[in-house]
C-alpha cells in the first residue's frame, strides 16, 4: 500500500499525461495511435502508484484519474475494433462502478459503457453472461436509461424472433459507439434468419431472399447460399422442400432401445 507522499508524487507525474490524454481524445476524430501510447504510459504509472481501489486509501483523486483513463481506454478499444482489449478495460472498470459507488462521484459514461458491455456479450451470443450482468443493475435503470434499454430490447427481439426490429434498431442507437457491435450482431442474425428460412419456407425467390436477409448486393446472398448449401433452381428461386419431412419412423434404433432396457433390468435387479 503506497503512502500518501508516494501517491502524491505519482499523481504529480500522472496528471500532465492525463491532461494530454484528455486533449487527444477530445479532438475529433481522435488520433488512435497517439492515444494508445499515452494510455500505456498512464497504466504503468497507475500500477506503481497504487491508484487502484484498496480498502483504506483516502485519496480519491487517484481513483478518479484511474477510472477516467480506463473509460477512455475502453472507448479507444472500440474505435480500434479490439474486442479483447475492450473486455479487459471493462473488467477493470467494474469494481470502480459497483464497489466504489459511495466513494467517488458517478461517472457520466457509466451507463454508456455498461450498455456497450451488454451489447458486446449479446453480439457474441453469450446470453448467460448477458443476464448475469443485467442482474447487477436495478430494474428502474433497466427500464429508463436509454443506454441500457437498447441492448435489453434487442435481446427481447432476438428471443421473439422479430429480426426486422433488430435491423430497425440499428438506425436509432443511443451512441455511435454502439454501431461497431451492431454490425457484428447483424451478421450473426443473418445466419439465424437463413436457418429459419430453411425450415419454414417451401420455396423463395432470389429477390425475396435478398430482402428477407436485408442484403443489398447479390454476392453476399450467393455467399450465404453457398454456406448453407442451397441450390439455385431454374426459375431463380431456392427450394427447401426436402428437410421438411422426417423419416425417423421407418427405422428402429436398436442400440438406444437395448441400452435403455438393460438399464431398467439392472435397476429392477437391484431392487429385488
Amino acid at each position, binding site marked *: 500500500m503506497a503512502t500518501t507522499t508516494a501517491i502524491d508524487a505519482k499523481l504529480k507525474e500522472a496528471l500532465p499525461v492525463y491532461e494530454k490524454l484528455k486533449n487527444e481524445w477530445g479532438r475529433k476524430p481522435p488520433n488512435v495511435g497517439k492515444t494508445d501510447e499515452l494510455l500505456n504510459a498512464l497504466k504503468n504509472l497507475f500500477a506503481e502508484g497504487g491508484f487502484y481501489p484498496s480498502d483504506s486509501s483516502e485519496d480519491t483523486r487517484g481513483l478518479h484519474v484511474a477510472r477516467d483513463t480506463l473509460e477512455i481506454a475502453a472507448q479507444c478499444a472500440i474505435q480500434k475494433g479490439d474486442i479483447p482489449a475492450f473486455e479487459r478495460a471493462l473488467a477493470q472498470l467494474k469494481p470502480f462502478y459497483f464497489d466504489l459507488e459511495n466513494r467517488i462521484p458517478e461517472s457520466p459514461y457509466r451507463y454508456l459503457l455498461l450498455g456497450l458491455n451488454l451489447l458486446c456479450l449479446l453480439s457474441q451470443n453469450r446470453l448467460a453472461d448477458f*443476464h*448475469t450482468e443485467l*442482474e*447487477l443493475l436495478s*430494474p428502474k435503470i433497466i427500464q429508463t436509461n436509454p443506454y441500457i434499454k437498447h441492448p435489453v430490447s434487442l435481446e427481447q427481439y432476438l428471443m*421473439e*424472433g422479430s*429480426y426486422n426490429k433488430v435491423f430497425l434498431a440499428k438506425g436509432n442507437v443511443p451512441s455511435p459507439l454502439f454501431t461497431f457491435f451492431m454490425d457484428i450482431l447483424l451478421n450473426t442474425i443473418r445466419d439465424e*434468419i437463413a436457418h429459419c428460412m430453411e425450415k419454414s419456407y417451401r420455396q423463395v425467390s432470389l429477390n425475396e431472399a435478398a430482402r428477407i436477409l436485408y442484403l443489398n448486393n447479390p454476392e453476399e446472398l450467393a455467399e450465404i447460399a453457398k454456406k448453407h448449401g442451397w441450390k439455385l433452381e431454374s426459375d431463380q428461386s431456392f427450394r427447401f422442400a426436402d428437410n421438411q419431412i422426417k423419416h425417423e419412423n421407418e427405422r428402429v434404433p436398436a442400440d438406444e432401445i437395448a441400452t435403455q432396457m438393460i438399464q431398467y433390468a439392472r435397476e429392477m435387479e437391484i431392487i429385488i
Partner: protein
Amino acid sequence: MVELHEIEMKEVDAPSGSNTANAPTTSKDEKKDANTLTLDDIKEQVRTIEKAVNSKEPRFILRVLRALATTRKRLNEDVVRRLVCFYYGSNTSEREILLGFIQPVSQSMDVDTGKTNTPVTTNEKQLVSRPQTSRARAVALPEVDLYIHLIVLLHLIDRNSLKSALDCAKRLVDKTSVLNRRTLDLLAAKCYFYYARIFELNNMLDTIRPFLHSRLRTATLRNDFEGTAVLINLLLRNYLHYNLYSQAQKLVLKSVFPDHASNNEWARYLYYLGRIRAMQLEYTKAHQNLLTAIRKAPQQTAVGFRQNAHKFLITVELLLGDIPDKATFKNPQLKRSLDPYYQLTLAVRAGDLSRFKEVLDAFSDRFQQEKTWSLIIRLRHNVIKAGIKMISLSYTKISFSDVAQKLQLDSPEDAEYIVAKAIRDGVIEASINHEQGYVQSRDIVDVYTTREPMNAFHQRIEFCLKVHNESVKAMRYPPKKYQEELETAQERREREQEELEYAKEMADDEDDF
C-alpha cells in the same frame, strides 16, 4: 426482589420434596408455572447435551436442536433471566454480560448494557454463594455455555432489539472460534446461521463475507459436514441477496456440498442452486433442483420456504413452456402468496400479450421484491409462442396480417419473422408461403408412430428409479448400537421357525384331544 425469593424458596424446597412455593397472586402463579415448565425443559435439554458430550453421540444434540424451534416460542424474559442466573451462578462476569443483553422487566434490577460490573444485590450474592456442584460442572462444558448464549440470542432476535443482538452474536461467534471440538460442530453451525441472520436484519451482510469464507475453510479442513453445509448456504444467500450471481456460480463450482448434511440444508442448497441456474437460462436443471428442494423441505412446517420455492418453480415451468398444475395454486397454505403467479399463468396460457402486460404492471413491485421480476420479463416470448401454437392448431391457413392482429404484434412482417423462428424452434409444424403471405399448417402426424411416447416414458421411469435409489440410500442411517438391539434377519427366521413349531405342537395337542 420477589422473583429471587421465589427462586430461592424453590431451591430450598426441592431437596425436601415439599411443594410449598406460594406466589402472592394467582395469575402470576400461572405465568410462573408456564415459565417454570419452560425452564425445566431447558434444564432437561442441557442435561441431554451433557450426556451427548460424555457419550460422543451427536444424536442427542440433534434432538435438542430440533426442539429449539418450540423452545424459542416459549421463551420470555423471565425464563431467560432465570436460566442465566441458574447456570452462571459461579461465573459472575459472564453472567453480567449476558444479563446485560436482556432488558430488565422489574425496575429493581437495573443492569446496564455492556461489560461494566454493576453492584450485585444481596439476594444475588446469596444465590451466588450456593455452589452446587452440578451447576459448576454444567457451565464448565463449553457446549452448554454456547447453548445458553444461543438462547439469549434468539430471545433478542424475537424481541427485535437488533443492536444488542449484534453484539451478542459477535461474542457468541468469537466463542466458537476458540475451540476445536467435534461435539461443538452442530451447535456452532446453528450459531453461524443466526449470526448471519442478524447481520441481514441489520443490512450489513457484505461485511461478514470474509469471515464466512475463513470459517468455511476451517470447517472443510476439519470435515465438519454440518458446518460446511450451513456456511455454504449462508454464503450463497449472501451473494444472491446482492444479486452477485457470477460469484455465487463460482462458489458452487469450486465447493463440494457434503453428502451427509441434514435435509434442511440440502433443501436450502438446492433452492439457491435452482435460482442461479434459472437466471443463467438453464431451465431444465433449475426445474429439477427446485423440485427436489421442495421435496426435501419439511411437509407441514417451513411454509415460507415452500412458498418462495414454489414461486420460482412456477416461473421456471412457465419459461420451459409448460403450464404449471392448477392443484399447486389451490393448496391452502400457498394460495394467497401464489395469487399473482396464478394470474400470470392464465395470461401466458391464453397467449394474450395485453393481459400479460397488465399483470406485469399490476404486480411489478411484488415481483421485484421477490426477485422473480427479471425472470418474468423473459416470459414475453413465451406468451407469443403460446399464441402461435393456438393459432396454428385452429387455422389451416392464415395470413400474416391476421396473425399480427391476433397476437397484437406491430406488423405482418414481424409476424412472418416470428412464425419462421417458431417453426425452427419446433413450436409448430407449418410452412410459410412467402409470395402470398400466409402460413399453412402441416397435417398432424400421429404421435404414436414416432418415438415420442417412448421418450416420455423413459424420462418418467428414470425419475422414479432415481427417487427409489435416493430413498434407499437415506435409509441406511441407524447407528450400529441400534442395530445390535434389533434382531438380524437370521435371528428373526429362527424365531419365526420356533413360533411355527410351537403353533404346530399346539395344533397337534388339540388334535390329540
